[in-house]
């Protein structure tokens, strides 16, 4: 777990299904990497390997030491019984006093910016689209060095996408971002993104 954010000769299979075979890629820090490829090609597996949620069957996955991670998943993965602000603040749940107030103010501003209500409802009462935005904000405000996004804008309408990305882009501009998507047009959100394709068990620089 030291050095660069990279895969070296990584094999990964689930039972008989081979997802990655000898996949290698090094992700340059401080910039956005767009991971494209057909469904089931292994984009999610790649992100899960980098997040430490899966172990490679062969090869190695490395991260710079002390890396703080944030991620959005295929699912929202919110605590249903907590408010939007409590969910977003989960990685900072230890904050107290003035630091807490300052972070809360930031959260409220963020919720407003992406068109979410600021209220005391638990998120189980929010719609699917609203929950997705909460999950995105949790990742963006987590104060991480490396952000992993697994098709975060899937199913979101065009207008909401613009609204969300207007807020999100400046915040993640200088960070290492891995952005899995079906839609190559999402590259427009990042200055000069690195394009990758995940297919046939490998990760290829385009």
């Amino acid at each position, binding site marked *: 777990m030291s050095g660069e954010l990279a895969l070296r000769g990584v094999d990964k299979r689930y039972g008989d299904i081979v997802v990655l075979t000898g996949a290698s890629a090094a992700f340059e820090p401080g910039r956005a990497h767009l991971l494209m490829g057909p469904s089931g090609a292994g984009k999610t597996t790649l992100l899960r390997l980098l997040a430490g949620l899966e172990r490679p069957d062969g090869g190695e996955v490395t991260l710079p030491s002390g890396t703080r*991670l*944030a991620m959005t998943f295929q*699912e929202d993965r919110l605590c*249903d019984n*907590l408010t939007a602000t409590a969910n977003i603040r*989960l990685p900072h*749940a230890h904050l107290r006093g003035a630091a807490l107030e300052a972070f809360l103010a930031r959260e409220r501003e963020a919720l407003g910016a992406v068109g979410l209500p600021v209220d005391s409802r638990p998120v189980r009462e929010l719609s699917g689209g609203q929950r997705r935005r909460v999950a995105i904000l949790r990742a963006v405000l987590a104060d*991480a060095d490396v952000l*992993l996004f697994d098709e975060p804008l899937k199913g979101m309408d065009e207008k909401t996408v613009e609204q969300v990305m207007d807020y999100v882009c400046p915040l993640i501009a200088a960070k290492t971002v891995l952005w899995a998507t079906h839609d190559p047009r999402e590259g427009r959100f990042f200055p000069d993104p690195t394009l990758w394709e995940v297919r046939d068990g490998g990760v290829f620089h385009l």
Partner: protein
Amino acid sequence: MWGVRLLAVCFWLLVWQLAAWAIDARIILVGPLEVLARLAALATTGEFWASVGLSLGRIALGLVAGIAAGVVLAAAASRVRVLRELLAPLVGALKAVPVASFVILVLLWVSSSSLSIVIAWIMAFPIVYANVLEGIEQTDSQLLEMADVFGVRPLDRLRLIYLSQVLPYFRVAVSLALGLSWKAGIAAEVIGLPDLTIGEHLYDAKVYLDTPDLFAWTVAIVVVSVALEAIVGRALDAALARWEARP
């Protein structure tokens, strides 16, 4: 809906009163009017309130201790496999053995005045233990994965992820335990006969064939049970809602 419910209650009260008049034997059945009068008379005596208070206090003590033990041991058992396997037969036995057997057995060990405390504990503990353990086990593994990725601190994980998943289970368990402990505690008093308790008065009513007293005390037990359920239930719901609404 409320009107229909009220009408149904009135119907059965009327049937009860008519039956009492028809049977016309106070030892077998007394009507609701007479029961109400008897209860009103009882309620003016200090002994009535002292008895209700003493029964309630002891059973509440056992209940709270049972809830506390259930929560602590469920949390421990969810972490320590051995403890969980060790407790399984004990909890199973506590649930399966009839309360009357426990009452007689426990009377051999403790004084009759402590009996209802122990019985209330025996009723509450397995319910709370099983429900809270279930809640912990059901905690979404996807949320725990998420917490791993974000590096959520252990205390925050416990406080927010586990707690938010377990609280609804806890809420149900407390409601169930409350009703059961109260009824079983009174039943224990009827057998153990500690002085100045509801159970003792029920027993006296039986011995002296004082059916109005029997009915009046029974009504008092039901009223306390319903009131407790409503008060505790509402307090828990309010606390839960407040906890969920935190920013």
